[in-house]
């Protein structure tokens, strides 16, 4: 019971935060809500027995990515968003369509139920006996997913280089042409 209460409370807060992220005019406040969103999501992950992913979620998303966003916002010293200069085609229609799709999906999802933990190799108990969530994830990651893992390390290296190259100040470049 308490677990369900916790989930619905968290879900409600996540919904509120998500809405605030996209509707708030001020980028910094949006970022703060995004942090809240990610933090709460980590809690949801933990409730799904995914402790490692939850930790990673906070560590990387909240601790690094959003900090980077904040940092850039502060660096560019961005104020609240100005008035629209561009007409977006048929916004009402898009919102309508998306909302209809959303409600249909959510409705269908909520009406049908699917209990967690059917069959499968790694039930929470199996993971516990195998040496814990982190251990088991590491085991799977470094055996079955070793190549994707290595490739992702190359991806990160590339991203680092790309970020440096792109953001580096080009002395020859004319500012504000």
């Amino acid at each position, binding site marked *: 019971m308490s677990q369900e209460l916790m989930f619905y409370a968290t879900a409600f807060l996540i919904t509120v935060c998500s809405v605030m992220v996209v509707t708030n005019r*001020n980028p*910094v*406040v949006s970022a*703060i809500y995004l*942090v809240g969103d990610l933090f709460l999501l980590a809690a949801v992950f933990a409730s799904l027995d995914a*402790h*490692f992913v939850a*930790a*990673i979620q*906070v*560590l990387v998303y*909240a*601790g*690094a990515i959003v*900090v*980077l966003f*904040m*940092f850039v*916002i*502060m*660096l560019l*010293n961005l104020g609240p968003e100005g008035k629209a200069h561009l007409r977006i085609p048929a916004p009402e229609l898009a919102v309508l369509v998306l909302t209809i799709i959303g409600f249909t999906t959510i409705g269908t999802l909520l009406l049908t139920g699917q209990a967690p933990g059917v069959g499968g190799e790694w039930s929470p108990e199996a993971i516990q006996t195998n040496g*814990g*969530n*982190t251990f088991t994830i590491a085991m799977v990651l470094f055996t079955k997913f070793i190549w994707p893992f290595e490739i992702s390390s190359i991806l990160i290296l590339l991203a680092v280089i790309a970020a440096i190259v792109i953001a580096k100040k080009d002395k020859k470049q004319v500012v504000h042409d």
Partner: protein
Amino acid sequence: MGLDELLALLKTDTAIEIIAAVIKILVVLVVCLQVPPVMVWIERRAPAMMQRRKGPNRVGIFQWRLYGLIQSLADTVKLVFKQEVVPRGANKVAYHLAPIFGVFTALLIACAIPFGNDLMIFGQKIGLSVVRLDVGFLFILAISSLAVYTVTLAGWSSNSKYALLGSLRASAQMISYEIPLGMSLVPIVVIFGTLDLNQIVVSQGAFPWAWGVVRAPVSFLLFLICMFAETNRAPFDLAEGESELVAGFHTEYNSAKFAAFFLGEYVSMFVLSCLASTIFFGGWQAPFIPYETIVKLVGGYNWIAAIIGFTVLILKASFFMWVYVWVRWTLPRFRYDQLMGLGWKFMLPVGLVNLLVTALVMAALEFH
């Protein structure tokens, strides 16, 4: 409901769990909140001692001066009763959120630090940390990465140039030093093979030659440097370089919120000191006397052994707190590019090499 029923209810597992949790939270909270006043006092008396002067020693209760210990109380009272001034153009939410966030993250980390071995009370096993996580290590890294927001939010929301510059500096510094911090801790995970902090303490044992500092000395040095950088303490206190930025990110803060920053800073210093003791110096293990021996010595009373362990941990952490103060009054401040260079060009490569060497050694040991 009669008294008997109430007692029976108290003896159920859930009740014991809840009561234990409340006690643990209280202990951690009380200890952590006692740190800043003492530290404020030490930080004024210690340099006075080093510089052969007296330091604050006047404030006392009637004739008991207590070496000026009451000075902290007086300062707190002053700060709390000051008028609150919120700068114009400040973002209210972020402005009020920032100091709270600082205290919040510091206390959250404190939750994961084990201050004693598992206790058996009424047939129930209770881990002596507020939350017993099997990913405690990751939890600490994750939460400590959130500490940046305090600085960032405070600097940005104050609507002041000095604060913004200070917070830019501080956030870049904290992001940069988080990487070597993580790098310095990974070898520990490799060596002890667990992310559970209490497990790490247990496997270090009571004898100093098996402690983390002996097994991973490079890690310890890196961690020590990162400790200073992460808490924005001297010699890495560029974020509040008073000669350049007035007071950095908390320039525009005063009264109770300023006190909250103080609180957050000292608590996080304390928590990191506890962490250093836990990871590198055997945590609650008393040197040379194994836990089992202590339990035997006190006649099998687990809880007395736990209190001894707790005291040992506090003593070890106090040593690091002293190091903080000591370093602050010994080393000059870094220049900003030097700081970044140290982080990226020295600490990170050293951390990586350290990790590699540790992994190789562990592999070799396992091989044999």
